[in-house]
């Protein structure tokens, strides 16, 4: 396999983890987060620091997930105070704060970022396999959560918080759980990213990335694991497959986001469901 293919598949795997984990927070549990990139970044920075301090691969992965989950749980508390669009604004704030803070920190490399991060020792191919394995586990985990009691509770919180509360669902605890799980997975992706590039800067984890991840979730179909996986793969490969799209990436993502919300709010999953329905009727 060519070096290009390996790096492309690695990026696909990372985006699948990120989109699926965002879908747990925003899709399953309905807590709109436009700052998912910040948790990805927190994971990457924590893993990079751990690796430089001499930690092994497993320790770096744990460090990355833990750092992101801690940050994520703190942000999760915000979801107990504010709802819907105001939670979205708060998470946008988190995203800008993260990049604004990291850029000014000398111990995090400042504007220059952290380079020469020790590798995993698996080589590019090994890294790719590790990323894809974790992506597969994340997707399986997401399917499992979707069918579990927790998934039901998430959906209840998402659809009508007050009704869920009346039914005895501990709304706050489930929101925090969604944030903790989703951001831990984003941190895991961050740690994998640190292995993959061995070089990180704050700009990689900016607000635009968070918007792109949200675009993947919305285009895939909010709350549908399969749809989001398909969207993450397609939207990562599309700019590579069609060369001119690469230059117009944000234009295409923004345009798709607007069109999908406006014309097919169910995304890919919704379209598939409608198609299955109409064929079943005939």
């Amino acid at each position, binding site marked *: 396999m060519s070096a290009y293919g390996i790096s492309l598949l690695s990026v696909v795997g990372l985006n699948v983890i990120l989109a699926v984990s965002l879908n747990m927070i925003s899709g399953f549990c309905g807590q709109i987060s436009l700052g998912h990139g910040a948790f990805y970044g927190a994971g990457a920075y924590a893993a990079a620091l751990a690796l430089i301090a001499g930690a092994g691969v497993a320790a770096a992965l744990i460090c990355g997930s833990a750092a992101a989950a801690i940050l994520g749980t703190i942000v999760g508390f915000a979801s107990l105070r504010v709802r819907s*669009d105001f939670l*979205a604004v708060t998470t946008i704030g988190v995203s800008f704060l993260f990049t*604004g803070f990291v850029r000014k920190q000398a111990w995090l490399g400042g504007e220059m970022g952290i380079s020469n991060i020790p590798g995993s020792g698996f080589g590019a191919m090994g890294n790719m396999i590790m990323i894809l394995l974790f992506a597969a586990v994340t997707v399986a985990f997401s399917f499992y959560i979707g069918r579990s009691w927790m998934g039901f509770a998430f959906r209840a919180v998402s659809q009508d918080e007050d009704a869920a509360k009346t039914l005895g669902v501990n709304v706050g605890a489930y929101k925090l759980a969604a944030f903790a799980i989703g951001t831990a997975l984003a941190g895991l992706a961050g740690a994998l990213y640190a292995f993959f590039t061995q070089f990180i800067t704050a700009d990689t984890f900016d607000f635009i990335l968070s*918007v792109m991840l949200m675009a993947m979730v919305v285009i895939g179909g909010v709350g549908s694991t399969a749809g989001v996986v398909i969207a993450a793969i397609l939207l990562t490969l599309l700019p590579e497959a069609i060369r001119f799209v690469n230059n*117009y990436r*944000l*234009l295409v993502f923004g345009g798709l986001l607007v069109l999908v*919300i*406006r014309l097919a709010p169910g995304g890919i999953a919704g379209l598939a469901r409608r198609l299955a329905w109409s064929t079943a009727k005939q």
Partner: protein
Amino acid sequence: MYYIDLAVSGLSFGCMYAMMAVGLTLVYGLLRILHVAHAAIFALGAYITVLVANASGSVGFGLLAAIAVTPLFGMAVYRLLYEPLLSYRPDVPMIASVGLLVLMQDAFRIAFGEQGVTFQHNAYAFRIFDIAGVRVNAVQIAMLVCAIVVFAGLHFFTTHTRIGIGWRATVSRPRIATSFGVDAVRVRYLNFAIGSALAALAGGLVGLLNNLVDPVIGYVVSYKALAIIVLGGLGSVRGTLIASLVLGMVESYGTIFVGTWLNRDAIAFVALIALLMIRPQGFSGARTA
């Protein structure tokens, strides 16, 4: 004199924020939508200003063109994007709005280049007045004057004309206003038109001040404006005005006091997050967030 220079810069930025944010807070007051793409209209205004100014050789002509064209665009955004989404949860139109912002900013980059467009004849950006030892840029004075004229005009319009009173009535009590014969939909169009024109004016002035209009001109401003309207109590023009000036000042002085560990643009978000956590309903208490 350094501190006074900072105050001048803070004040002029505050005026710019106020012109940018007033349309946003009124859109929120009317529709309960966080109109993030307002920043794209700000950028559109800046681009129209620079392009027309370069083509015609007159900066004033550029600003006029921006003020004339952007209201049409603002009304189109309402009609094509927000109106069909009004029945959804408020985060749906907001995400669509973010999508539109990203799309438009990238369209500007593709159409006019990564480096942006500079003014060819911009005498104002480099004309510095020395008032009792304080150095003031001509564009900063223009920002101040524009903001005073705009807000005085808005005040007159909303207190002394029938249309303006109807507008105000619809923002505070849409149903009662409708039952008194105010056409709520036309008020929305009016609101988008005026808000967009003010954002375009602010965008054009920022372009003049920097002597450059680049594709990222709207990004940071957009989220700052969100911070301002939350700080100002959503839907309140007076609160927005105060919050804009306060943010302009805090940023101006903040760069010397906290600039070593946090960049200038992040200050607004610290304030925003802190306020949302302490008082999710905003200062005015008008809204349940």
